[in-house]
């Protein structure tokens, strides 16, 4: 991926490799599924660490006040997170290109330009955060940032986690510039 850059029109843009577009599309689709499955009234579900991190306790020492806060805010927060993830998928375009590559490719597929307006930037920043929060849970990242997941997937998951952070940092720097 090439770094995001601010355009004169106010948008930011970056070139993504097709494989990166596919990856982001895949993890964002999974996030959408997770968000869509969360029932804010289901206490057992809210106790799951990943869900807990997406909808943290506002009152850590007062379960009653925390539950009340969640009653008033969880649906709206989930709606926002869902809309953001959907906006990310929208900016990635449809996946026709990636599904056609069944034959052996004769040449490398071309990088894909990703252009984001002001509103899409906000959706991307937030969704990249939500993705990292969920992946961090999968990686069993401890309070010092050290992952403890140790299975055949841990390297791949760790690479995805770091890549998502790189994309987000690049986006933050681009809008800061």
């Amino acid at each position: 991926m090439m770094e995001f850059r601010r355009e004169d029109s106010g948008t930011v843009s970056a070139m993504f490799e097709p494989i990166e577009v596919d990856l982001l599309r895949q993890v964002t689709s999974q996030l959408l599924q997770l968000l869509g499955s969360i029932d804010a009234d289901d206490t057992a579900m809210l106790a799951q660490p990943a869900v807990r991190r997406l909808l943290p306790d506002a009152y850590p020492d007062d379960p009653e006040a925390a539950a009340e806060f969640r009653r008033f805010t969880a649906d709206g927060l989930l709606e926002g997170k869902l809309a953001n993830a959907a906006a990310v998928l929208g900016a990635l375009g449809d996946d026709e290109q990636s599904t056609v590559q069944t034959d052996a490719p004769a040449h490398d597929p071309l990088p894909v330009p990703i252009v984001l307006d002001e509103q899409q930037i906000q959706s991307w920043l937030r969704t990249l955060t939500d993705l990292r929060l969920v992946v961090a849970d999968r990686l069993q990242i401890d309070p010092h940032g050290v992952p403890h997941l140790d299975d055949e997937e841990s390297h791949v998951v760790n690479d995805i986690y770091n890549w998502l952070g790189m994309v987000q940092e690049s986006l933050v720097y681009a809008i800061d510039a």
Partner: protein
Amino acid sequence: MPQIDESTRVREAISLDRPWVTVVWDDPVNLMSYVAYVFRSYFGVTAAEAERLMLQVHNNGRAIVATGDRESMERHVEAMHGYGLWATLDKAEE
């Protein structure tokens, strides 16, 4: 209805007594650059102040990013959760 009014009145009475604070906690996931960006864009503080708050979160484990009545602090905490930051509210220390 009366119950809601009652609890609102109680809250206001409490909030006059002692203000509430919005606390943002350090977490190993969120990038320092992003946290500073959130403080700057949401609270409208200068880049230097956002950096100072972010470093306070990072180094001390938490920072008070806003003080005021309970409802405003709940609004801030909700906004922080929207950004994916780990925020809570609490009564201000006496």
